[in-house]
Each structure stands twice: as C-alpha cells, then as structure tokens.
C-alpha cells in the first residue's frame, strides 16, 4: 500500500513519531479508500444518471453530469420498446427452477459423499473435483446436440433441468465440506431411535445447514441471472429470452427502431442489475460467508 506512513521511521523517537505515523497512515488509507470507492462507483453513477436523461441530454456535449429533470418515465418506456416484463418472468422462472434443483440435488449428493461409504465413492469424488478444472466449452457441443435431440431447443429446459442432476461439482463440494463439520453424534442418536437416513437428512442435517444452503441459493441465483452464453445458445425467439439475452437484443434495437434508445438501454441495464443488488443487500451475510468458505477450503 502506498501510504506516507511507510516511509516514516517508526522506531526512532518512539512515542511521538509513532503517533504521527499512525495518524498519517489512517489519513492516507481513508483518502485512498475513498478515491477508490469513487472510481468503483462512477460507472454506475453515470449509468443511473444517463438512464434518467432525455434524448437531447444524452447527446449533449460536453456531457451532463446529472439530468436536468429526472425522467423516471424512461423506465416505463423501456418496457414498451421491448418485452422487458416477459424477460423478467423468464429469468425468474429459469433461476428459481435451477436454484431449487441444484440445492435439493446437491444436498442429497453431498450427504452421500459426506456420510456414506460405498464402493467407488472416493474415485467419483475425485472426478467430481477434477471437473471443476474442466472448461465447460468441452461439454457444450454434445450437450447442445443432446438437447436438440430431445427437442429442448428454444425452450428454457436446457437452462434448468441439468441443475437437478447434482447441481454441479462446486455446490456438492461446498455442501459436503459443510456436512462434515456437523457432529456425527446427531445422526447416530437418530439412527438408534430408528430414523432412516432420509429422515435424518431432512430433520437433523438440513436445519443445521441453513446458512450454507442460503449461500448456495444466492450464488446459484446470481449465476443463473447473469448467465449469458446458455440462453444465447439455446434460445432463439425473443419471447423465450432471459433478461441477459434480452439486454443484448435491446442493444441492437436502435438500428431497428430508427431512434436513439441509449437512455432506455441504460435504464434497462439498471433494471437488469437491480434484482441482484437487492438480493445482495438482503443476504449479504450469507453471501460473504459463502464466498469465503469456497476460497478457504478450495
């Protein structure tokens, strides 16, 4: 870190210079942190501003920092230019179904890896971890051909049905690590009482796994919401589009409609990102926790 305090001799004349060094460090850090915060927020600040400008203001030079009069109706107009509401619903459907699927199936699979011994388990677990290294491009073409064979092209099925088959290596790994931290005594006590494994999972483990399940749900939601390549490959008609693909469609719209739509496009960007930001603030704790878990244990 480039703060002035680093160059200060901290060992000489201990008390006074130490105090000055600390103060300088604090001031330097705050200045740096604030400047960085401004840099990080500026693009969004500009986008929000642009989304509320009139067409004339958008094309003004020098560029206007803030809109003269806030045009909230840009947000309404965006819905009229493209079927934004429909895309929202499509995204919501895909994300809900895929999140549910990956949470439910990954919990079952992780439970198996964490608590049961079966022939080949460790080999399969090893393969599971190895698939995390594999770029998804290599499985993309056969998957596409498979879904084509099944008649799933131009439906949202390819975007959520695979999630029900284990939810991916990452979720399985994360949940397995978590289950292993829950004492086995709980399961064993219930086993002696005659509970079957499914009952133990649902009644004993899942209540203990709430935080990690919340984390995974949030990550899966964001991943699904932001996914672009999947919808791009599998969806063809605009009525099926998700929000991410819809934004791309909208981007190319100005040519079609023959009038500038940049301000509406910026409004669309804000609306496409808003659910994620809201979710982040609602579930911030789980979110940060989950990322941390993945990094430390990975």
């Amino acid at each position, binding site marked *: 870190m480039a703060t002035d305090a680093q160059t200060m001799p901290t060992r000489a004349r201990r008390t006074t210079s130490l105090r000055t060094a600390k103060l300088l460090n604090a001031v330097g850090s705050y200045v740096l942190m604030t400047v960085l915060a401004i840099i*990080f927020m500026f693009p969004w600040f500009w986008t929000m501003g642009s989304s509320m400008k009139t067409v004339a203001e958008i094309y003004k030079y020098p560029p206007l920092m803030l809109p003269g009069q806030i045009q909230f109706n840009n947000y309404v107009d965006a819905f009229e230019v493209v079927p934004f509401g429909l895309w929202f619903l499509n995204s919501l459907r895909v994300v809900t179904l895929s999140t549910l699927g990956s949470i439910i199936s990954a919990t079952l699979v992780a439970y198996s890896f964490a608590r*049961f011994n079966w022939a080949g388990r460790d080999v399969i677990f090893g393969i599971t971890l190895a698939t995390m290294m594999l770029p998804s*491009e290599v499985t993309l073409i056969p998957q596409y051909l498979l879904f084509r064979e099944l008649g799933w092209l131009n439906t949202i099925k390819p975007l959520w049905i695979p999630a029900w088959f284990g939810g991916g290596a990452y979720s399985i790994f994360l949940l397995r690590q978590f289950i292993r931290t829950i004492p086995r005594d709980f399961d064993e006590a219930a086993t002696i009482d005659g509970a079957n494994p499914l009952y133990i999972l649902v009644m004993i483990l899942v209540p203990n796994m709430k935080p990690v399940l919340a984390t995974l749900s949030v990550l899966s939601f964001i991943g699904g919401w932001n996914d672009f390549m999947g919808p791009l490959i599998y969806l063809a008609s605009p009525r099926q589009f998700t929000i991410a693909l819809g934004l791309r469609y909208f981007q190319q719209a100005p040519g079609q409609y023959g009038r500038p739509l940049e301000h509406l496009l910026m409004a669309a960007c804000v609306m496409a990102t808003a659910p994620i930001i809201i979710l982040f603030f609602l579930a911030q704790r789980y979110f940060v926790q989950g990322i941390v878990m993945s990094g430390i244990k*990975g």
Partner: protein
Amino acid sequence: MERGCYRFSTSLPSGQTGQRDCCGEEIALSSMSVPEVIVTRRRRPWLAKVLRCNTVKELRESLWGMAFASPWLLGLCIFVMGPILASLYLSLTRYDIVSTPELIGLGNYRRAFFEDSLMWPSLGRTFRYAMTVVPIGVAGSLTLALLLNQGYRFTSLYRTLYFLPSLTPSVALALLWTWLYHPQLGPINYGLRAIGLPGPGWFSSTTWALPAMIIISLWGWLGGTQMLIFLAGLQGVPQELYDAANVDGANRWHKFAHVTLPMISPTLLFNLIMGVIGALKVFTLAYVATSGGPARATWFYALHLYTVTFQYYEMGYGAALAWFFAFIVILITLFQFRLSRQWVFYAGE
C-alpha cells in the same frame, strides 16, 4: 438386536443363490431366527460382493449412499463424462448437424493448427488478455483486501462499495461501458480531454479495444469475490505471528513478506488458478461490446469457438477447438499446481 454385526461368508462362491434382490432383507430375517454360526456360512449375495460389502450394515449404507448420489452419478454421465467422450469423437469428424458425422481422423486438428488463420491469433490475444488481467486482478484484489484489513471504521461500507461492480451482469457491464467509452460523448474521453490528453477511440480503435476490455474486466474483478476471499484469508492469520515479528523488530514490509504472504499463499494459489481459468474463457464482454472487432482486435478464443460452432454449425471442428482449449487450460492448471509446491505454504499440515 443389531443386525449389521453378522458377517457374510466370504469363502463360498456367489451366484445362483436366489437372493438377488432383497439380500438385505433375507439375511436380516434369517439372522433373527438362526444362530450366528449358520448365518456366517451363508453365501455372500452377489450384490454385496459387487459393492464390496461384508456386512448387512455396510450393504445398507452402500445402497442408501448410492441412492442419494444417484442424481450426480447420472448427471456426471449425461452432462460431463458422456459429452467429454462425445466431443472427443466429434472432433475427429466432419459434422454439419444436418448430415451424419463423417470420420476424418485428425483433419480438424490439422486445420486448427495449420490452416485456420484466426485460431493462433485468437489464442495469442486471449493469452495477452489473461496475462494482463490475472496478475493485476489478483495483486489488486490483495492490495484492496490489505487496505480494508487495517481495522479502520466504515470498512464494511467501503467493502460493499468495491464489491457492487462485480455483481453487474456481464452483458450490462459491456453495455454501460460502451456508453462510458463513447469516443465523442463519453465521460472518459471528456475527462481525458479536460486534462489535455487525446481521447482514444476505445472500442473503435484496433490499438485500444483490448486495453478497454481489460479495464472493464478489472473493474468487475478487483473488488469482487477474490477480494473477499483474500480478506477472509488475512483475517485467518494468527495475531501471535505478527506479535512475534514485532518483537523481532520487523517492519511492515518484512511482516508482509514473511508472515502474511506465506500464510495466505494457499488462498493466493486458489485465486490465481480460478482467475486464469476465468480469464481464458472471456466471451460475453467481447461478444456484446465489440463482436470481436474492430478488425478482430478482440477476437478471443471462446468467440472463435462459438462462431465456428453456433454460427457456421461446424460441430466437428468446434469440438476439436474445444478439446484443444480444454487441453491448454488443464495443462496450465496442472503446471500451476506443480509450481505451487515451491511457494505455497500449508500451515495446518
């Protein structure tokens, strides 16, 4: 009575015993009425043998375990292993999706390596991109984490502000930056002109399109998940180590180089590996912002792969490109693991 403690006999051959399906049940029934000696002489059912179980308890556990794992066992076959093998086969064929695949041996690979004038440049460009984005991204995330980890007030507010850009969907990222980069009307060039610099054409300039792409990626990267991971790693470094270093009169740099860095080296490795894989796959940004242009200045490997496969429908050639890509990514990852033995320090082990 605990049924699981009875042992199957292992000495007798299995098969033709008539206990195919419900061996667990049958043994369990007999165990209640028949003395243990007789039970142990029973033949071990084939299912137990296949699953390498010696006791009823183990067999039950196996069956439950496999039942729970079955979604993933299926998923692994249908969506991962099957496709990997299928794309290996496809990469040896010419397949335009309409007619049947026609085996052409290594023709696709020959074409990729020697005849495709876009392949090597796109790979080189992808590497140039990754080799800029990854070091700056990882080092920058670490620097931000160090800055936030000093225990000042409002740290969590700053953390949130840094983190928010990384939540932006890539499509929105590309769209809003296109507007910021606008050569005439964009605020970036306006700012540059205000301080007397000529504003470059960014996405309309072959020289500046790639740097522009790198800046966008870094904006979405620096304050993102990697920073949070580093932050957690830094908080996991025991205070005693710093105290000991203080006693020895270590300065800040010493403490960073000899305490912090070794202690967070596993985290650093994780972020590096994930960062490289992510950067090599760069697609959406280029697809949305520039479509690979201008004059293919941002034509990345994944874009090339996508175009060949889903625009020209050359599935066989696309599969060969995908396999080559996977090969490179895995090679780099293994190389990093290998190299990590030199510098990663696992404190717990």
